[in-house]
């Protein structure tokens, strides 16, 4: 039976009209559809936030996990069954605030998952507090006089932490974003995709226009994403406001580097020990 785009459609979104997250959902569905992945072979794990609701609107297997905890859940699923395509998706607060530790660790491990961060520079579901990616001086409900913190630079962290695929997209450019997500899914290893996904309700600063005016599109430049140092220079040069695939390399995958049988789903191993195996284990404890 041939697949249709509607096979990847879940509940009706409750996002505000014009929210950047719609584009992320659409591009994700397109990417999976275009790659011809059967819906049952993909698992989307989301966090908590407006962004986290993506899993409910995407129509396949999913986990709507906890705030900041997409990565460990996704890692567990991926190791358990490497035949699945595992995608983690969440917000900037979710991934770079409360969940930052997990993200950094997963990049250095090179867990074979794709991570989509819907970065609107604000905590939206909780109705507008500054987030780790809010710029210094950002006025929000918890920073009425402006935030006191330098903003977090996810791309630089991703590059430094050893991510094997680093890209940035923009909800205002769905063609590029779809291509980025496709490449991220096809990439073997940890694919980090930061997506500028404006919140039209609570962030009046970092709007679609704000990004449009500033973004430097790597696809319009002669840029090769194979060199980590060059990638870092590019990100710093553009103050992180760029789109495209910034870095990509091949590295051994975490689930295969762990002791155990390569690429074999843990779900496919027999659970009962044979008498011989049991005796062998007992023997180790005999004196």
């Amino acid at each position, binding site marked *: 039976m041939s697949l249709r785009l509607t096979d990847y459609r879940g509940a009706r979104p409750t996002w505000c009209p014009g929210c950047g997250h719609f584009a992320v959902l659409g591009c994700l569905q397109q990417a999976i559809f275009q790659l011809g992945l059967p819906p049952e072979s993909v698992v989307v794990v989301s966090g908590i936030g407006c962004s986290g609701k993506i899993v409910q609107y995407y129509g396949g297997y999913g*986990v709507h996990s906890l705030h900041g*905890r997409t990565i460990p859940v996704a890692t567990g699923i991926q*190791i*358990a069954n490497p035949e699945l395509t595992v995608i983690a998706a969440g917000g900037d607060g979710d991934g770079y605030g409360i969940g930052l530790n997990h993200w950094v660790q997963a990049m250095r491990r090179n867990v074979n998952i794709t991570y989509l961060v819907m970065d609107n520079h604000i905590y939206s579901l909780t109705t507008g507090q500054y987030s780790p990616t809010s710029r210094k001086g950002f006025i929000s409900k918890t920073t009425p006089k402006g935030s006191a913190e330098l903003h977090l630079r996810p791309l630089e962290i991703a590059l430094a932490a050893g991510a094997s695929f680093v890209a940035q997209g923009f909800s205002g450019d769905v063609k590029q974003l779809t291509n980025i997500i496709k490449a991220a899914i096809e990439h073997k290893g940890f694919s980090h995709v930061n997506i500028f996904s404006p919140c039209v309700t609570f962030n009046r600063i970092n709007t679609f226009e704000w990004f449009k005016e500033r973004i430097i599109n790597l696809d319009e430049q002669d840029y090769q994403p194979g060199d980590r140092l060059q990638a870092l220079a590019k990100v710093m040069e553009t103050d992180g406001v760029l789109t495209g695939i910034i870095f990509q390399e091949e590295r051994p995958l975490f689930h295969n580097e762990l002791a155990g049988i390569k690429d074999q789903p*843990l779900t496919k191993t027999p659970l009962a*020990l044979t008498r011989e195996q049991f005796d062998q284990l007992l023997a180790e404890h005999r004196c």
Partner: protein
Amino acid sequence: MQQLTWKVGGAQGEGIDSTGEILGTVLCRLGYHTFAYRHFMSLIKGGHTNYKIRVADRTVHYHGDLTDILIAFDQRTIDENREELHQGSIVIHDAAFEPQGVASIQTCAVPMRQIAEELGNAIIKNMVAIGVTAAALNLDPAPFLQTVATRFAGKGEKIIAMNNSAIQQGYDYYRRHVQRRFSLPTRKADEPLILISGNEAAGFGALAGGCRFLAAYPITPATEIMYWLVNHLPDYGGKVVQVEDEIGACLMAVGASYAGVRAMTSTSGPGFSLMQEAIGFAGIAEIPIVIVDVQRGGPATGLPTRTEQSDLNEILYGAHGEIPRIVMAPATITDCFYRMIDAFNLAEHYQCVVIVATDMFLGMSKQSAAEFDFNAVKVERSGLISDESLTKLQPGTFKRYALTESGISPRSLPGQANGMYVALSNEHDEHAREEVEDRHNRITQMQKRFRKLSPFSPSQWGTMYSGCDEPDLLLVGCGSTYAQLSEARLALEQAGKKVAHLHLQILAPFPKAAAAPLIAKAQKCLVVDNNFTGQLGMLLKREIGFHHKYISHNRYDGLPLTVVEITEKASEVLS
């Protein structure tokens, strides 16, 4: 009971542990029933550490109140263990110091350090102690030499030879200079033995129970579970991840379980606290998960290398919101093995959180135990919907959280066509696509989840009772206090008291049907807790009533209970 207790003590880093391990191995090889307890501190060098072994003519689950032979490398060992010495004890101390405070007890000096130094390295003074031990116990040194040779096989002939000379010289020195000999029990075990700790038994039980994934973060006294599994799971198609923290560890296991693997995490108090939110998530999303909490002294970093049963409340009630959960508290090292198998079967059957509450005393103590029974191991799969059943459904109609009579709904696994659903941490409806806040739905889903466990009754092992039918005093405990309570009951019975012992291995769902009538028949109950506030006692009051019957005995200094403190308290209550 014929028995003998031996203890070696010194500073950390002096090889105290391996001294105990070697004696334990030899005694197990010779077929003796033993139980060993390790006492140590949260530091690498210095401080005080000791290793105690009790040898008895029957299976014992406790290292004993007293010490017959104390080998002391320093005065601190004597100071720290004085209370365990009795008139018939002997203190064998290093000749380098003059022991203080043991005037009424036989002492003998052995130049352990000096012998070691003359052989080339002071560090092997513990091997001299082993030779001394062999002589004191009237044992042939040969099995000790053999054990050392196997233990140090990788270290080369020279090292082995040096260690062997140390053992031999310690042996000869004691034979020449000291008259006193101790006899081991005449009766040995009549079945083959294994030497295993509670943590190792829990790891073994997990593997036998079908666990193929462990995600954990190192923490004393739970790490040995991780060691055991990391050394075995990969050979059986499983994997182990050392995660960045316990939040991630628990959730990684939850993720693996969602994908269809029997998965677990192991931890101790501080890590368990970090898992609370994940526990609630597994509960509402109905993802099976097994968590072992090897409790230690709390709160916060508390007493990191001491034992306590002080996480009980958190284990029973922890996590915000309300979820059904199963809590078991293995009573012995052997139970750690079997309960883990039960834990995995139950977690899968009820699609719920199962917490196995052990503690440092149970987890890190080592016993020569009867070999585990292969025929008693059953991996029971349940609740998983087949590909066949799924293909028969109209696409999009599978109900992951179907409102069934039992409350248990069919579970699909990612990869199965037609079985797609979202495991939500939000409230959801039967279809599991999106969050649902409708009040009617909320009520039915809450009731469904809590309905699941209503038929659960762990009849054979959940409550253990021994002693007379209508006791004047019923001793009540849970988990690792089993051994001391059993021995206390026997001692009290021998003194002519009408007592009995009720031990709980299941704490949630509370085995009220089994426990309440037993408590009803007792005049009074002495509830024994290894914590300050009497958490088991509070549970009994909450679940059963009979508030007027309970007298509590709580120990919270980080040490396991002694038999004598229970018998004394019981006698006081009975008089």
